[in-house]
């Protein structure tokens, strides 16, 4: 039997960790879930829109349950349909939150509105524990994993450059790290990893004591409020 190579296993473990939800995710979804159940137990598009728009924003806060209950009451009295219609069809502007004021557990409510979820399967035959599961051909959802925008192979040189920059900073050479970050910006002006590069630049500037320059570099990053880099920035000289 072919086994996974150690390096392949390592990649899998890292990817698995990356896709393991946080406690905030767990609480946010649970709050929305209970609200949906309380609203009738079936997530109609209206209910889905309502939960995504309002209840989702409650995630990660204290007294989550109390707020969920209050929200349900508000939604009920104000008219679920009208609210949901506006939330679902209306534009959604991203919320801007100052870096330092934002916690490490970002909310997921103010990004682009996702496609409405599938209708619940409550009316459909469900896979029972015994034998109700459909056959493979019909049951497997035809969802291909999300393709990367840029092939991984094509990113090797870019990664190498960024890695050298990280290593330079770790080795106590922030000037060299800055130089490599500049080189990266010149070579890959539209890189998907610009946030990582700019974070590195901020950290290197902090190392050099150039707090004002670091703040200027961090300015575009404040809009990435859902980025995992936020906590790193908050802990740096620009977040203090």
């Amino acid at each position, binding site marked *: 039997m072919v086994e*996974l190579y150690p390096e392949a296993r390592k990649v899998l473990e890292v990817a698995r960790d990356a896709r393991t939800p946080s406690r905030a995710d767990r609480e946010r979804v649970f709050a929305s879930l209970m609200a949906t159940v309380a609203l009738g137990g079936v997530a109609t598009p209206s209910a889905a829109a309502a939960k995504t728009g309002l209840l989702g924003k409650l995630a990660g806060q204290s007294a989550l349950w109390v707020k969920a209950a209050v929200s349900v009451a508000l939604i009920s009295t104000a008219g679920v349909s009208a609210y949901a219609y506006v939330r679902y069809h209306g534009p959604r502007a991203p919320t801007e939150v100052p870096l330092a004021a934002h916690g490490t557990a970002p909310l997921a409510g103010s990004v682009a509105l996702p496609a409405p979820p599938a*209708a619940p399967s409550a009316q459909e035959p469900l896979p029972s524990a015994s034998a109700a599961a459909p056959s493979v051909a019909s049951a497997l959802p035809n969802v291909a994993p999300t393709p990367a925008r840029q092939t991984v192979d094509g*990113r090797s040189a870019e990664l*190498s450059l*960024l890695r050298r920059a990280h290593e330079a900073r770790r080795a106590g050479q922030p000037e060299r790290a800055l130089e490599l970050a500049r080189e990266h910006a010149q070579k890959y002006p539209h890189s998907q990893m610009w946030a990582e590069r700019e974070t590195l630049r901020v950290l290197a500037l902090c190392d050099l004591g150039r707090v004002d320059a670091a703040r200027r570099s961090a300015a575009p990053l404040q809009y990435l409020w859902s980025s*995992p880099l936020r906590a790193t920035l908050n802990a740096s000289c620009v977040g203090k």
Partner: protein
Amino acid sequence: MATVPTPPLQEDAESVLGNETDAETGPRLRLGPVPEFRAVYETYFPFVWRYAANRGVPPMAIDDVVQEVFVVVHHRLASFEGRSSLRTWLAGVCRNVLRDYVRKRGNQKAGDSLDDQVEIRSDGIGPAEALEQKVAVELLDELMSQMTELQREVFILCEIEQLSAVEVADMLEVNENTLRTRLRAARQVFNAGVTRHRAKRAWGDRG
């Protein structure tokens, strides 16, 4: 007004679900007619979330899809007969919900929208780790896209979620030999892809 139940957060789901673990089928429920929903949620939320993500649900839709799964579980948990592991049953629910999701999503071409951006969890990791996770997730997705549908399903359930071959074969209604053949093929695709990626990265480092 509808009332919302307010159970406290269950930090130790095992205390409700029981700590008996079967190597073949995962954690087992204690004796009792119906598993407690909150404990099921606490225990299996990561599994459902990862399964959806690995099946290609974009980050922007994952909350809704995971919620749909647990709405169904909430409705149907009482009818769970315990003839297979709860995880197997849940995986079946996930697959049905995902099928609905795909149908609703229609023929939207992958790669067209922000939906397709790879997102990773945000828990204050450093830039180097974030980079490593991003690359690993992209590599995983790229290599899984090179697998057949069944290979991908088997790979996710067996390798990522560590379900047993018996469980997965039962869930997919294929015999164990077929399953092992698919798993072997999926591993080969993954091994080859990681090796190729490593080689190209090493070549890039030299430059």
